[in-house]
């Protein structure tokens, strides 16, 4: 089970409301390489993992991704706070306003809804851990592109925190992959 803690993992801050950035940033909420994809991918792959290390790392990184999802939601909430329909339309969010008003929704930067086809579970631990490592690198690159799109130092600070987390997760998944391969090889030695 999970227990909700009434605080963010990181003090997420924005310098100003910015609908243009909100439109791009929402891809880390409901896009292919976003935090929802990450959390659901890892927490779902746990069940076919063969070792305690891989069960633990997918549980714990998957849980951290839920905290990152909340950080992204907070940033989008703050970037869009008190926006009028006219301002949303000018930022290319007229369609979003028609469907959702100021509510958050799981979409990518061009409005496509989240889909389970963004994630895979092959049941093969080596294949799944490779997918997870690639996912971390894609998320890291997305954060870099988002940082390139803004000059808000407060927003950049939080995006940079999230970017660096992807690097750490990549490292841990790589170590888990090595250990799984050692485990698989050891089973064939007589």
């Amino acid at each position, binding site marked *: 089970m999970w*227990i*909700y*803690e*009434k*605080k*963010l*993992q*990181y*003090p*997420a*801050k924005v310098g100003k409301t910015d609908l243009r950035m909100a439109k791009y940033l929402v891809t880390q909420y409901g896009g292919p390489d976003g935090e929802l994809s990450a959390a659901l991918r890892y927490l779902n792959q746990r069940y076919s993992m063969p070792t305690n*290390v891989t069960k*633990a*790392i997918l549980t*714990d*990184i998957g849980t*951290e991704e839920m905290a990152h999802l*909340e950080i992204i*939601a*907070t940033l989008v*909430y*703050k970037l869009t706070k008190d926006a009028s329909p006219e301002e949303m339309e000018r930022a290319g969010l007229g369609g979003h306003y028609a469907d959702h008003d100021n509510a958050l929704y799981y979409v990518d930067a061009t409005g496509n809804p989240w889909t389970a086809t963004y994630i895979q579970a092959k049941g093969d631990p080596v294949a799944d851990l490779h997918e997870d490592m690639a996912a971390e690198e894609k998320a890291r690159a997305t954060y870099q592109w988002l940082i390139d799109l803004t000059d808000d130092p407060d927003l950049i600070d939080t995006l940079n925190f999230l970017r660096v987390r992807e690097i*750490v*997760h990549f490292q*841990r998944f790589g*170590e*888990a992959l090595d*250990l799984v391969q050692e485990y698989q090889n050891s089973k064939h030695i007589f």
Partner: protein
Amino acid sequence: MQREQLELLKRIQALEFTAIEFNLYLDTHPGDQRAFMDFVNTVRELEQQKEIYTRNYGPLIVDDTARQPCWNWIDDPWPWEIEY
């Protein structure tokens, strides 16, 4: 949110982050006893700071509310409403 409360919240966030870093590292290095001791010490300090926070400002998890004078779990600010 008052400055003092905000500073304590940020200290808790920093300590919890340290604990998560040790947590993930220890998942793939479970035999590293030195890192384990660092984890233990970090969590001890984190628990102390959370205890001070909940006593002064309200619950962080719903069960903390059992040591509060009334059902203040629902009180604002919620995490996304805090101005850092």
